[in-house]
């Protein structure tokens, strides 16, 4: 199978004053369509940097990032914008919803960018917020906010969903419900999903588990029998 995402010897070095911080060190990785991948590692291991590079939010210092055979590391800012608009959906730890727009409007905010968007109402219904569409982020719980963020990530109908600590700000039960939702989307809509977390038990629900430390991939294992998120315990 042809990988939808292919990283080849990707490094990311941040320069601060006279110091250099190596966030990623020659990382190579292939992600296949429809995979559910969990990136595990302690803080500062380079998980978010890796996710940002795949999502076109950042550019590598060296190496290449190919998505569907196209090297996005050489893309201009405008091309990257177009790439993110068509190919990627982001889900963040702090939801990052626009506080002045209600749930429906937040999803529409993304949908307006797409040529064939998903229907915001339908998406919100799918994530279980049919009755909360007109509520503003400040009127929703953390789990509800994250579900709005998921609906928003799906609004442009992207093949790739990148989740940065999506449950980091949620309680256990709510977190489980979010993973359940992500897994369902992965299976029902064949979305490729990469989840960054430092919560080790989450790795059990993934198709593949990638462990990172000090900017390197230290372990890459395939999960023969991924757990149902309902069975998660931590």
């Amino acid at each position, binding site marked *: 199978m042809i990988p939808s995402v292919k990283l080849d010897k990707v490094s990311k070095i941040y320069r601060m004053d006279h110091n250099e911080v190596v966030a990623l060190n020659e990382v190579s990785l292939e992600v296949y369509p429809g995979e559910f991948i969990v990136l595990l590692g302690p803080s500062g291991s380079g998980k978010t940097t890796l996710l940002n590079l795949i999502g076109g939010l950042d550019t590598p210092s060296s190496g290449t990032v190919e998505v569907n055979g196209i090297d996005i590391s050489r893309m201009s800012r405008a091309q990257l*914008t177009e790439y*993110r608009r068509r190919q990627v959906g982001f889900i963040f730890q702090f939801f990052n919803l626009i506080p*002045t*727009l209600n749930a429906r409007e937040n999803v529409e*905010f993304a949908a*307006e960018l797409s040529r064939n968007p998903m229907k915001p109402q339908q998406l919100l219904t799918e994530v279980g917020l049919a009755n909360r569409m007109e509520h503003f982020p400040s009127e929703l719980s953390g789990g509800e906010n994250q579900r709005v963020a998921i609906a928003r990530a799906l609004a442009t109908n992207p093949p790739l969903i990148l989740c940065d600590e999506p449950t980091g700000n949620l309680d256990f039960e709510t977190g489980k419900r979010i993973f359940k939702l992500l897994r369902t989307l992965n299976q029902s809509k064949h979305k490729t999903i990469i989840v960054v977390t430092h919560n080790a038990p989450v790795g059990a629900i993934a198709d593949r588990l990638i462990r990172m430390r000090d900017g390197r991939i230290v372990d890459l294992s395939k999960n023969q029998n991924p757990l149902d998120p309902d069975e998660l315990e931590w």
Partner: protein
Amino acid sequence: MVKLPRLILKLLRDIWKSRVQYGAVALIIFLGVSVFVCLYEAYQNLNLSYNSFYDRLNLADYWISVDGISRNAVKDMNEIAGVEAYGRIVRDLFIDMGNETGEKVSGRVISLPENQMPGVNMLEIQAGHYFSQSSGREILVERHFADYHNLKPGNWLTLEYQEVKASYHIRGVVMSPEHIWVVKSAQEPMTTPRTFGVIFMPLRSAEKIFDMEGIVNDITISVAPDMDQEKIKGQIETILERNYIKRMTSKDDPVELRNRRSELIQGIRSAYLTERKNMPVIRLLRLDLESFATLAYLFPLLFLTMASLTIYVLLNRLVESQRIQIGLMCAMGYSQGAVMLHYLGFALVVGSIGSLLGVFAGHWMANVYTELYVSLLNMPIIETDLHWDTILRGLAAGMFVPILAGLLPAWGTTRIRPAEAMRPPAPSVGNRSIMKALTFLLRPFPYFIKMPILNIFRNFRRSLFMASGIASAIIMVLVAMSFVDAVDQMFSRQYDTIIQYDAIIHLQGESAASNVSLISHLDGVTAAEAVLDIPYRIRFKDKKIDTSIEGIPEKSSMLNLITQEGVKIDVTADGILLPYTYKETLGAEIGDTIRLEPLTGIIGETDKKLVGYVWSYIGGRAYMPLREVQKLQRDFGAATAIMVKFDEPPSDYLIKRLYNIPQVASIELIADTRKALDEQMGFFWVMITIMLVMGSALGGAIIFNGVMVNVTQRTREMATMRAVGLGDRMLSFMISLENILISFIGIVIGIPLGAWISQAFFNAMSTSAEDIISFTLEILPRSYYIAAAAAVSLMLLSQIPAIWQISRQNLATVTKEWNE
């Protein structure tokens, strides 16, 4: 229902969320645009109204003054194609006010045709009728004089010429385009209707009084617009020549007196031509209108500069606080251009609201202003129009300035990398070495003192913005106060420092100086000094000014002449003193030799050394010792007036006695003149009040925004302080202390800047009429105190909403949400 794109919806909701702050910016733009539209449209309306009034009453294009010319010459002038001429008699006399005291004031008689109004300088009859063509003695009284003295058609007025009195029946009260403002002469532009009036009478009556049958001494000429003015002037000169007036001189005439004298010896007479633009009343009106136009640009410039600064800071703060949203938009695929336009949209919306409301309000105010102004002048014509050029300029400025100010912060969004934006920014710590030094210095102080001081330097740019708000309030107040000071100083210098006499008695007839001894011995009179005032042309190189020279006693106790710096200066036999207002026009330095040419007669031409410049603001004349002027006139008994000092306010009996002296023509009491001038300043005080209110609104809006930005940028920090137990009162104290300290920075910036801008205002408002009227900027210490106190008060008031907002914060929410 139309569905708004979500990005626009976000924009509108974000604005609504901070509506008070954006409202304050819109208010500043509103004020700037409305002031511009109001003043500039008022300027255009007034121009229209004046011109319309002039057109309707066919104001003359030229005035020709002669000692006397046959009325046939005027007939000949009327034969010239495109020319309408009217010959008249214009003479000064005295008006007996009919009081028990025998009060007399100066009057100017202008003759009119008996049967119908002249074709040039027509009159607007406001009450009563034109002459009835009966044989009775009828006059028309100019409105200003009639209003002041409550004269109505049917009343009688006694006129006195060369000690002969006659009563006249007032047939009507009229307005004249030549007398929209009553100006006696360029030397006495601030004439009050109390002491000077214009009377119109049938030509036949005037001929009799002044013994000028078949002769006129003033010709008013109106020329059709498309005619060759120079050619017509040439034709008029030919007619004058035919009537033995070989030379036509004017304000711009380069011919020197020595030539005129030789012509006079040969029996060649001259006429004096004044163009409409050089008439004192026209020059003063133009000066007034020019000040409208100047203010129309200067004030909004100040407002819009401040508005742009506020928008810049607000948008910077917005972009800073919405870093994550910007990152998110980029992550979602919004292009850089879309994001930049989104943030520029804030400026556009605020600018549009402010300027649209501004042009509406400005247009409405312009009409009200025009009507108020025109009604003060009692002009029968008000022309108000929608001046699209001004409306569009106002709109453009109101929208362009915010967009320009918003460009930089909006452009800043394109530099934000989405990946970086997702991380919270590091809190500002300021310049490390300054902060370290301050921390060391502030060691002995408690935290509630230490923190406000450290906060100022922690984000010095933010503090500077706040200080600029204070500075702008100070600038506005200082500019307004500088006008108050200038007028106060002007009156105080003129009436408290320079004029030491209580009354000036105008004399008529020869050897009038002999009256000094008589008057000074009257009971109730402390002292009296003679004055001789003779019209002169003062020439230095190729520059010249037509004015008068006033001879006053050396070491005069009545006229305390001072230099521009306020130092006393006396007239001396060595030379001549000139008013400071002439310095720029003449360009003469002290020590230079000035040529003096009498404007009437041929004796008295001489050269004098310029020994000093004396302070003057309105009119202004040259000064020499009385004996020297008398010597020039070859008449050691000549005097035109007597300055008198009374023991106490003069009794009616004393005034009556003075009027009974045969050569006394009129008496001007300084206290009355000052009161009348104060009354004429009413409109000026309205302007100043508006300036102060607008200045306060501007300062308040900027400071309010500054405080809100200051507080909202530190919402979490303040909530945390409250969470750890800091009371509302202590927090308010800390915020107030920080703001007061910032106020001091604002005062340090604002005071010198305000003084400088006030000076720039004054310079910008100086005009070609400087030899008539000239303000000197002198900001009094009280104005600095008022400006500083107003700014600090505004600061303390403006922080109330911010403190209120802090005390209402939901601690749990604010301390949790770092991104908003």
